[in-house]
């Protein structure tokens, strides 16, 4: 159940970010944040740093892209 449950939880939580074509900044920010998480996760062993950094990158990109 573990991998299936985590995958389903991830997809359901990501769904609002990737739904609709008019949300390009949201989609781009989420994609970049996920890449940042992968990179940080490879360099650190914990859960908190990649989670918080991913959220911060997403927030910063959304702030930057929607203000532009």
């Amino acid at each position, binding site marked *: *159940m*573990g*991998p*299936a*449950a*985590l*995958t*389903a*939880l*991830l*997809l*359901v*939580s*990501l*769904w609002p*970010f990737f739904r609709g074509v008019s949300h390009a900044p949201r989609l781009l*920010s*989420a994609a970049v*944040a*996920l890449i940042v*998480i*992968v990179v940080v*996760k490879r360099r650190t062993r914990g*859960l908190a740093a*990649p*989670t*918080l950094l*991913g*959220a*911060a990158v*997403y*927030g*910063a990109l*959304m*702030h930057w892209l*929607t*203000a532009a």
Partner: protein
Amino acid sequence: MQAGLHPVVVIACSVCVFAGASQFLLITLLAPGASLLAAIPTVLFMNARHLFYGPALLARLGHSDRRLASPLLAFGLTDEVFAAAMSQLERIAPTQKERWYLGLQLGAYLAWVGGTVLGVALTSSFQDPPVLVREGLSFILPALFFVLLLELDLRRHRSVILSTALACIVLMMFLPAHHALALAMVIGATLNLRRHVA
């Protein structure tokens, strides 16, 4: 608070109903005047996925070293607690698993209630948070689930992950997210079981 509920009711709701989406649904139903008889079954139906969470988690906890009653372990079970427990429990020593899980759900519960108290206290000054904070907070859960997924051996579980993702995407096009979640989990776990049996 925005639905016109008294601060004490809002905090009491967080203390008694430790389930984020359910609490929002409950308030959405109760605020316009829906009866508890109509609201409670809706909330229970929305949380039907916990029928799958419980047995899966008990299997990971093991039976021989369990001292606490199942209802106590079930109270703190949320999507986030379940995800963290499923990815981390295998690394915990059998004698420590129950204590570790109890600490996990207690931490999540205290953060939930503490966050509600903080939200009630700061409601007037935090009505319109900056975009960076608001959007960053909205991405915390996907980020956490993604990190927990990366903790697993992705190559070993590749087929389960891909089939669950595909099932989940298709189901979400036709069903509410909470139903798609439960069904995708079952489909993915069934495929995983078939792979192990074959």
